[in-house]
């Protein structure tokens, strides 16, 4: 099991540590609900150093990224960030990722911890046909996510990093403490916030400063999951997988079918034209029983799918989930049931966004 550069600090803060994506990560320091509310109402800091980073450079860097990535980075200005997926030829998702455009021949890919080896093997193999060099830099970077309505103030004042002018989904390089940091206005919580990439030494010092300032609450992966879930953001392994395409997951807006080519294009174009057999939906239950990953979804006395993520939503108090179900049952307001502890709990199909995002755009 790997550890991030902040492992000792988590243990010292009394965090409950759990395995996640091959790393020992803090799931909570005190309480998931308190940490969740801190991010919704003020500011929280997450250790996301487990995330993977891959640098792509070379004369054909853009052509290569266009080939492996579903979104369209062509002609983008330096400093722009794109969300999208890498697909298998059959349309299933290898990973979802962020692509940072660092230069006309330089891109920085941020991938999920659990997929680093799989992704880098895939990226390396695809890169053989292009004039590019790729480097897996996952072990050299630490990463913090500072999230919440007060994140801008905290990053500016506590870390002395000027980030105010950054627009949503853009980044800049900042020289600090003798190194070059990557600072972006991104996150995974549905709130305004920033992600900061730097050396292990910088990330450790920045973490200490944030915790000592008491202006950013240390937040674990537990609330990272409840926060992203409430605003309908997918987690690879739950809402996306080698079998689940972005079209099935309702993420077609990040798949640019008007691009000349990319791996998986034919398959997802067919899915979009002919429709998919299963679709990701939201379900709201009438009672308080909590639907969890893997629970059966039932309608017309038959199993029509299964829950991908579910919680008693911290912000709304309702029992809600995302589920992958037969498309015939995906329409809003369709009555469905979830089997929880042997009992069928009644509910209905709702939008996947259970709480409104508060991005600063």
């Amino acid at each position, binding site marked *: 099991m790997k550890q991030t550069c902040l492992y000792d600090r988590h243990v010292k803060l009394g965090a409950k540590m759990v395995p996640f994506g091959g790393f020992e990560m803090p*799931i*909570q320091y005190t*309480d*998931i*609900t308190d940490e969740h509310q801190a991010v919704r109402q003020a500011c929280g800091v997450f250790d996301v150093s487990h995330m993977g980073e891959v640098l792509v450079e070379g004369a054909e860097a853009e052509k290569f990224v266009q080939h492996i990535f579903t979104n369209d980075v062509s002609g983008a200005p330096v400093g722009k960030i794109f969300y999208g997926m890498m697909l298998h030829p059959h349309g299933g998702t290898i990973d979802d990722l962020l692509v940072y455009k660092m230069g006309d021949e330089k891109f920085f890919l941020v991938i999920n911890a659990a997929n680093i080896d799989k992704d880098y093997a895939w990226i390396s193999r695809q890169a053989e046909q292009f004039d590019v060099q790729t480097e897996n830099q996952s072990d050299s970077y630490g990463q913090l996510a500072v999230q919440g309505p007060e994140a801008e103030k905290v990053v500016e004042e506590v870390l002395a990093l000027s980030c105010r002018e950054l627009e949503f989904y853009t980044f800049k390089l900042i020289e600090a403490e003798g190194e070059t940091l990557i600072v972006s206005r991104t996150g995974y919580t549905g709130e305004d916030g920033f992600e900061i990439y730097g050396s292990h030494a910088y990330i450790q010092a920045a973490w200490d400063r944030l915790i000592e300032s008491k202006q950013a609450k240390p937040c674990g992966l*537990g609330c990272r999951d*409840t926060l992203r879930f409430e605003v309908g953001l997918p987690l690879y392994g739950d809402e996306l997988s080698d079998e689940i395409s972005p079209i099935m997951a309702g993420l077609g807006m990040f798949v640019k079918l008007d691009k000349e080519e990319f791996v998986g294009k034919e398959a997802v174009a067919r899915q979009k034209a002919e429709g998919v057999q299963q679709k990701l939906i939201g379900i709201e239950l009438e009672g*308080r*029983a*909590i639907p*969890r990953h893997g629970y059966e979804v039932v309608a017309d006395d038959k199993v029509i799918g299964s829950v991908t993520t579910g*919680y*008693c939503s*911290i912000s709304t108090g309702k*029992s809600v989930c995302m589920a992958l179900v037969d498309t015939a049952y995906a329409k809003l307001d369709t009555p469905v049931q979830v089997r*929880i*502890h042997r009992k069928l709990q009644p509910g209905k199909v709702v939008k996947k966004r259970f709480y409104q995002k508060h991005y600063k755009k």
Partner: protein
Amino acid sequence: MANVIEGLYYSESHEYVKVDGEFGYVGITDFAQEQLGNVVYVDMPEEGDEVEAGSEFGAVESVKAASDLISPVSGEVVEINTALEDEPELVNKDAFANWIIKVKLSDASELDNLMSAADYRAFSSK
């Protein structure tokens, strides 16, 4: 340090039984609620259901996870604590006052298989 009350019977899966005549009130221990964190839902059987010693009869759920409830005794559920339907967090406030089910004990000798307060205190501090 979690509270342990004298005179109750305790199971290794951290349930307690408070015996009152032919009835037993079953809930989770203070130690168990501390380990779970904020309880957000309690799944309970219905009145009239039979529970069996060593078998699952419901679940207590925190934000992140569901933990099965294992009955320490056998018998008929004569009452459930309906207050927990709307306020599951009562289990965190006072786990011993907020029992989950009241069981009409079918075999009082099952209590002999459970731990005393002193034994449970030692067991749960291991």
